[in-house]
């Protein structure tokens, strides 16, 4: 622990790695001061290519109770850009709501219209409270082909939440023609005009919804969920993940490899949490009392800290000192 304001008596909050046997995941054990039984035991290991058995044979290891075949994985970092499909995005800007579709290069090839459409509906449902009725909407279709019928479907969906589609930005001539014939304003631009810098984080994605089994929220920035993340639901964010509710599914923060990212939840009992290329899972037994907690990476492992002690999390400490420096 590198925090300075920690009284030594609280040091039992730190990671206690078991002697790491060969191929064995280091086990992080977290004890909350005052509560004698360990509240959360999380075994955690880095997705280290060195740990991958080159040839997996089911009978080769005597100590095969360990998780290597499943956890041994190339760092997600390496292949991240290739398979992450950034989602449909809603953004309020200057009295206008921008409905941004992912570009073809941002999504995997199999992301078809049905998926885009489902995401549009999801986003609209998740943010209903935040706009005035009849706010104009600008659709950023990027390099996607959108035909007249699809434009109509989008316009109808917007109407249902009392928004009105007015302008279509596109880099494709056919989409521009379709939009013009449907009576919307059109702005055609170069394909690369709008291309978001791949490294910059997008604006936070704010969703008021229950993330249910089979749902996957991917966002190139921070994700805020007002609601629960059920088992089988998955959130993958390039920034932090904040769940105002129960986190029971999978949360992957810092998906592009930033291990300073945090995962916070009112009740944290995730199937798995991943931060950058670290991974951890919950103990088999659900603890009786769950309190708001923060997951972060310390000394090569994911650790979970109660929120009341979150000031001791290095990532949070650093940010506050930076702010102080700016003011004085």
């Amino acid at each position, binding site marked *: 622990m590198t925090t300075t304001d920690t009284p030594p008596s609280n040091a039992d909050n730190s990671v206690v790695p078991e002697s790491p046997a060969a191929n064995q995941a280091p086990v992080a054990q977290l004890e909350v001061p005052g509560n004698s039984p360990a509240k959360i035991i999380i075994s955690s290991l880095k997705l280290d290519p060195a740990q991958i058995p080159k040839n997996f044979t089911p009978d080769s*290891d005597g100590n095969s109770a360990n998780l290597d075949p499943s956890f041994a994985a190339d760092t997600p970092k390496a292949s991240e850009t290739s398979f992450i499909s950034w989602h449909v995005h809603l953004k309020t800007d200057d009295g206008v709501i921008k409905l941004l579709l992912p570009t073809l290069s941002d999504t995997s090839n199999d992301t078809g219209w049905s998926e885009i459409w489902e995401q549009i509906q999801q986003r609209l449902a998740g943010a209903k409270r935040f706009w005035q009725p009849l706010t104009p909407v600008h659709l950023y279709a990027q390099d996607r082909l959108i035909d007249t019928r699809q434009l109509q479907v989008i316009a109808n969906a917007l109407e249902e939440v009392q928004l009105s589609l007015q302008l279509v930005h596109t880099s494709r001539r056919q989409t521009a023609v379709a939009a013009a014939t449907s009576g919307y304003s059109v702005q055609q631009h170069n394909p690369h005009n709008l291309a978001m810098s791949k490294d910059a984080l997008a604006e936070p994605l704010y969703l008021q919804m229950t993330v249910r089994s089979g749902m996957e929220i991917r966002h190139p920035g921070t994700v805020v969920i007002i609601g629960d993340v059920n088992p089988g639901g998955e959130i993958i964010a390039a920034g932090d993940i904040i769940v105002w509710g129960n986190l029971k599914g999978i949360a992957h923060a810092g998906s592009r490899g930033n291990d300073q990212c945090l995962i916070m939840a009112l009740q944290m009992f995730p199937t798995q949490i991943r931060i950058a290329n670290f991974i951890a899972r919950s103990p088999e037994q659900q603890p009786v009392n769950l309190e708001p907690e923060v997951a972060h990476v310390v000394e090569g492992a994911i650790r979970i800290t109660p929120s009341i002690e979150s000031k001791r999390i290095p990532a949070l400490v650093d940010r506050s000192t930076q702010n102080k420096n700016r003011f004085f």
Partner: protein
Amino acid sequence: MVRVIVITSGKGGVGKTTVTANLGMTLARLGAKVALVDADFGLRNLDLLLGLENRVVYTAVEVLAGECRLDQALVRDKRQPNLVLLPATQNRKAEMITPNHMKWMVGELSHQFDFVLIDSPAGIEMGFKNAIAAAQEALVVTTPEISAVRDADRVVGLLEANNIRPAHLIVNRLRPAMVEANDMMSVADVGEILALPLIGIIPEEERVITSTNRGEPLVLDTTKTLAAEAINNIARRIQGEKVDFLNLDVPKEGLFTRFRRLISLK
């Protein structure tokens, strides 16, 4: 020589996944190297039944998309080293799976395992076609209900059309007392319609519910149940042993019970 067996039923909720999990566990305990393949893409459950949900990092879809190797997606069972699971994916990407994908994956697995058990989804659509694509043999699970038997019959026809034989029949969730009272189809009734060789009869067992919720297959339960014994016998029959079927007859009334009933009547 690997044996690739699909567990299928047509109707949902008859116990395909439970049978797959328990059978896989039993075969592994008998010393065989077993891979379970969850072919129920989009609504996977096999990982839950085995209590392995929180160990799933990659699924079959990531393997097929070239994002990881097949062996990275295999989840080794936490109790039984001979057993691994190839999990299905939860999300939409499942639509990309084709029968050829399944053939390739099972082909890769067949080098390393003695048994590949494929848990088929309910229905006879794409998911079912994927599940049977790579299979050499089938286990048809049905319950003694008219709807389940009807669907199983349809599935048997499709299996025959796809040249998957032998197919064996498992009658699941039998209630001997109800059969006795003529309130439930008997195994003979089911067998007469489906005309498949019977490989096992599993009685209804309440503990299945607790074992499912705990992620501990029934066959690992310390309390011995008839259902677990029945599954054990099926595993041994699959391996070619001759095992007598369990006696599931309702015990005849003894002197004592008759006496007690007389008392309670008064």
